């Protein structure tokens, strides 16, 4: 069993605290993704698990061993870096076998295990090449191969795909998903790419400023975010947020010509401000006569994004399929099902349920 457990993990650089007491349990075999805006501490947290950054306080356990102060090499982990960090002067085979060689594994066994990994990753033809002679995707595969070869209990990935171009990224994403299925090891994966997070994760950890905002399955987070931050962060294009005012059993939305949306969530007192959120997919447009007009329309073939100009200046994006008769610049009517709307406290940004 080799899950990873963090108990009140804290990281300080001198005075500045970067990670604020993270408690987290990742089960054996789970694929856990850390997401969050740039600088929120994803990499730091991952590197603390790897042992590349010292943990200022708290405990990190891998399996049942406390590894908080252990050497990186002793933690039974392998890491794939964003930059791949391949040794440029070694061939692919040497790169993959380096860790074993350093640990005194016999030559024959190294060859065998490298062969195994290269088979899994379809790298057989490149074993004698230097990294320079490989494409980005191949390098990435070598980096993963190097991790696999050592047979670690936990794989750590730090934005492994962000240096690849869009197409390759999709392929490698699928590859990593397959790999996880095949090996079944615990994987912790840092990304800022939503799609990767949504498609790969068993469990997503949303971080903000060194604090966990929410932990859950991808669809769990998408469908049932705990707060405005998570709601806005998960889903693409991101959720539209508008200011609203509580009125009776619903809210009034000034941006949409004081449209009233009824809801049965626990709203604050009448007259209080709340934030309402609706996903672009859940909005439909029709010709209208209010103050909301259709700004720019972006056609992407199968789907189009309409940018609405509202009277309050809040921008609303609507995803639509198929052709629409509404012309750019014309007034539109916005409608959505009340159950598709989410409500958030205007101050704390917590979800109102």
């Amino acid at each position, binding site marked *: 069993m080799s899950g990873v457990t963090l108990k009140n993990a804290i990281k300080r650089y001198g005075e500045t605290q970067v990670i604020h007491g993270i408690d987290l349990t990742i089960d054996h075999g789970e694929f856990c993704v850390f997401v969050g805006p740039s600088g929120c501490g994803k990499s730091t947290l991952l590197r603390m698990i790897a042992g590349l950054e010292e943990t200022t306080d708290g405990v990190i356990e891998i399996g049942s061993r406390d590894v908080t102060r252990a050497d*990186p090499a002793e933690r039974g982990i392998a890491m794939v*870096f964003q930059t791949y*960090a391949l*040794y440029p*002067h070694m061939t692919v085979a040497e790169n993959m076998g380096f*860790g074993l060689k350093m640990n005194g594994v016999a030559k024959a066994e190294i060859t065998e295990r490298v062969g195994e990994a290269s088979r899994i990753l379809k790298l057989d033809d490149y074993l004698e090449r230097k990294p320079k002679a490989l494409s980005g995707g191949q390098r990435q595969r070598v980096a993963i191969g190097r991790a696999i070869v050592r047979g670690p209990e936990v794989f750590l990935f730090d934005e492994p795909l962000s240096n690849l171009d869009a197409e390759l990224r999709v392929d490698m994403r699928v590859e990593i998903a397959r790999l996880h299925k095949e090996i079944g090891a615990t994987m912790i994966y840092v990304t800022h790419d939503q799609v990767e997070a949504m498609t790969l994760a068993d469990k997503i950890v949303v971080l903000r400023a060194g604090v966990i905002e929410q932990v859950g399955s991808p669809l769990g987070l998408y469908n049932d975010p705990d707060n405005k931050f998570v709601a806005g962060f998960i889903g693409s294009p991101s959720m539209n947020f508008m200011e609203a005012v509580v009125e009776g059993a619903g809210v009034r939305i000034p941006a949409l010509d004081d449209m009233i949306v009824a809801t049965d969530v626990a709203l604050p007192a009448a007259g209080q401000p709340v934030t309402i959120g609706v996903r672009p997919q859940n909005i439909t447009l029709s010709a209208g006569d209010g103050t909301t007009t259709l700004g720019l329309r972006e056609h992407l073939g199968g789907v189009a994004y309409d940018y609405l100009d509202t009277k309050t200046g809040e921008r609303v994006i609507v995803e639509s399929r198929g052709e629409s008769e509404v012309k750019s610049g014309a007034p539109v009517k916005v409608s959505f099902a009340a159950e598709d709307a989410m409500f958030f406290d205007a101050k704390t940004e917590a979800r109102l349920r």
Partner: protein
Amino acid sequence: MAVTDTGTQSKQSWLKRNKLTVTPWVFLAPALCFFAIYVVIPIFESLWLSLYEWNGLYDADGNSTAVWVGFDNYVKLWGDPKFWTSLVNNVIWLVMFMLAVPAGLFIALFLNQSVPGMRLYKSLFFFPFVISQVVVGLIFGWFYNPDFGVVGSLWKAVYCEETVNIVGNLTFRCSAPVPDILSSETWATYGIILAGLWPQIAYCMILYLTGLNNVASDQIEAARLDGAKGWKMLWYVVLPQLRPATFIAVVVTVIGALRSFDMVAIMTGGGPGEGSTNVLAYYMYETAISEYGERYGYGSAIATVLFAIMLVYISYFLHRMYQDEKGGH
């Protein structure tokens, strides 16, 4: 009229059309002129002069007194033991000087830490390189001096006792004679090289310190995960990344070794004995223009040999550079 028209037009447009061809030459001209006059042409003159015998004098009318001797100078070189001594010394310089590379690396590794005041330490360590070789030569010459120098003083402190001599002055009676490094045919060359190593190590150190700055941290981290430590880390991961620094360190060290002149001139003047610390650079100077020299043709022949040796390195360097250029574009 039409003919002249097109004529002037094509004239104007020639300059214009070839603007990008002509401009670089305008920019290059001054440097090229200077360089040609002082460097390129003299090289060939030297090669040519090595085929003459000349005592460097012009007669009162300014005509050279040189006499064509063909390859005689080279034939003489072949049979000249001082030339061979110099050549062997140059080889010793080359080999010993190479110590500067690992030594520089070692110091660089030692200093590659961030503690308060490190910048100052680093620059103080670099100090010897900035100082003129003449000064370094004087310093070490004095350092080695058996009577007044540090070596002498230390030796006296250990092996000698202070007594009073016949006229009542203080003197030293030593159980073993003070080593006189610069007067020993065996050790003088090494003494000079040691002095030369001092600034050279500092140079290599700086090169390596900069190289270490650029070592990819992700590779180091990957290697740490791979369990590489200490020497293994250095050998397998760090050194390969320091290859450019090593290359340059070797190049400048080779050049330094082959160019060694100042130190020899200052510390021993080629002596003791029959040029036992001579090197080609100094022997050439000595032969051509020192007090007992006046053999310009012969000196040029020595310079030519030195040039030929250096040419091997220059070619290698240019080859490397050419590869880089090709790769870069």
